[in-house]
């Protein structure tokens, strides 16, 4: 009787210990594909950054001679790199000034719309461009802007028969405005989703209190809505600042054509590296870009924590 109880307890314990191990083994198996994929596709390329300190030769591979910081020093004397960096920062600054606040404004305005069905319809339609590829958006721009496209037709019908038909996409001066417009068109709706969610989370008692105090719609917006979505906006602003050395390769490369001379960091990395085989230089460019971006995120996050008490980590 006693014996059998003891045996049963031992048996149960054994089973429990084994079961626990088995439980964890199962969880580790679930994690294994992610760990292996990340290790291979994200960590294995990292030593490749050393290529930027080498005079890389495809045939010698990692036995290529070391040249230290020469590549990186050379970068800062290259007009092409400096110009591309300037262009990248220029586009980022314009996007921060235009494409960043636009969704906030859109969300606030959309929130004021009364009819629920109409509101939902506006949302659905405005999110749509987000799901089209950049190249499809460029294709559409191509069609709209073409010599006998709708924009030129409109200009002629307003300006009269003599109006010159412009090739918008082959005009150097219009390249940057085109980038900004296409980016705005594709992202404004989708980027407003997060602000709409933030506005929906505002306690309605705040609006009631403001209204009792005699605040009109505008005052309510300025004193309740905007302060309440500020934390979200600040976080997104930090993320954007961290990305100012990055640019949208899909959009810029897609819009480039033989009549445009406008390179950014990502396009020269592609053209120098993959297209021209100048691996050391292209890796050095990517390395400097990544490093500066990383430092920027840390810095902005630090200052934001100090000033606003809002931070990513």
């Amino acid at each position, binding site marked *: 009787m006693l014996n059998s109880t003891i045996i049963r307890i031992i048996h149960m314990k054994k089973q429990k210990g084994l079961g626990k191990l088995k439980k964890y083994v199962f969880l580790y198996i679930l994690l294994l594909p992610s760990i292996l994929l990340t290790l291979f596709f994200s960590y294995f390329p990292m030593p490749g950054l050393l290529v930027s300190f080498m005079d890389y030769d495809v045939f010698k591979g990692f036995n290529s001679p070391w040249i230290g910081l020469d590549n990186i020093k050379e970068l800062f004397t290259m007009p092409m790199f400096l110009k591309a960096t300037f262009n990248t920062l220029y586009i980022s600054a314009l996007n921060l000034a235009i494409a960043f606040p636009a969704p906030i404004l859109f969300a606030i305005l959309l929130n004021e719309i009364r009819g629920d069905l109409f509101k939902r319809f506006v949302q659905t339609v405005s999110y749509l461009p987000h799901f089209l590829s*950049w190249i499809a958006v460029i294709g*559409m721009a191509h069609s709209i802007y073409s010599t006998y496209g709708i924009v030129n037709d409109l200009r002629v019908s307003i300006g009269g028969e003599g109006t010159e038909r412009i090739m918008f996409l082959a005009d150097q001066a219009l390249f940057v405005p085109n980038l900004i417009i296409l980016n705005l068109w594709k992202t404004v709706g989708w980027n407003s989703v997060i602000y709409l969610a933030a506005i929906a989370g505002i306690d309605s008692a705040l609006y009631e209190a403001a209204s009792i105090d005699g605040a009109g719609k505008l005052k309510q917006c300025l004193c309740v809505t905007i302060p309440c979505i500020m934390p979200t906006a600040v976080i997104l602003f930090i993320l954007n600042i961290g990305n100012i050395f990055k640019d949208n390769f899909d959009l810029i490369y897609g819009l480039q054509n033989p009549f445009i001379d406008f390179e950014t960091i990502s396009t020269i990395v592609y053209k120098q590296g993959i297209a021209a085989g100048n691996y050391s230089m292209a890796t050095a460019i990517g390395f400097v870009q990544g490093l500066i971006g990383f430092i920027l995120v840390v810095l902005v996050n630090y200052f934001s924590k100090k000033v606003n008490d809002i931070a990513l980590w």
Partner: protein
Amino acid sequence: MNKNNVLSKFWGWINVAFMVAMILVMLLPYLHVLAKALNDGTDTMFGGITFYPRKLTFVNFSVLLNDASMIRAFFLSVARVILCTILGIIVQFSAAYALTRKDLPGCKQILLFLMIPMFFNGGIIPTYLLFVKVQLINNFWVYVLPGLCTFYNILIIKSYISASIPESIGESAVIDGANELIILFRIIFPLSLPVLATVALWVAVGNWNDWSTTLMYVTKEHLFTLQYKLMQLIKESERIQKLIQEAAISRDGAGAALSLKATPESLVSAQVIVTTIPIIIVYPFLQKYFIKGITLGAVKS
């Protein structure tokens, strides 16, 4: 008070007008492209096409679909999307579920390991050199493998599971004698379907829309995707169009004849429609799934 009321009503109408303008700005470009795709190419050259075809024809589409490489590209893109979505969801869901188990030894370290590449990674060229070494260049799997484990998606699924499925469900199932596999497939999986639908749609759309992977890692024609074909057509047509125009100005007789035959513009329009139509058709029906995930993410942060 009354004046205030009138003002606010007036403002309300302005706002509605603004939103209507917004809808038009979002939809009309697509309609214009659709009209051009369905219009006779040489007729389009005269201009004046608005939002409906003037000379209805399916020639543009038949020219495109006549090209065997286009059909191939279509099926390749579809295969890629299906494979990436199914495998991606399996990888990401299983990792996300394991990471919700706080009792798992090493859970935090694994999370950190998966997160670091989001902030710091090798970049394009080191990745390219690695792919050269392991022969992923000009290999179909370059479309599938690198994107399978997306940390952002894992985070979204993980936060959904930990927020909406109480841990006690799993515990009570254990008491009832269910093992881990049964808990995962019979309890957690059905309860996570909403977030999985969202992530699956993101993965599918992202893979369908991607063309820079082809540009970077693929040079063989038989591995081109539909989006990449569109890119090629656009890049070339920009050149062709300018050349045609220049030819028409310099040697008016021969140039004009040439420009009548070549209509890269209507082909690009048709190609835009072909590459976007799957999304346009699916989007209205699955719209709620598209949106849900991002609000989940917002709640989390």
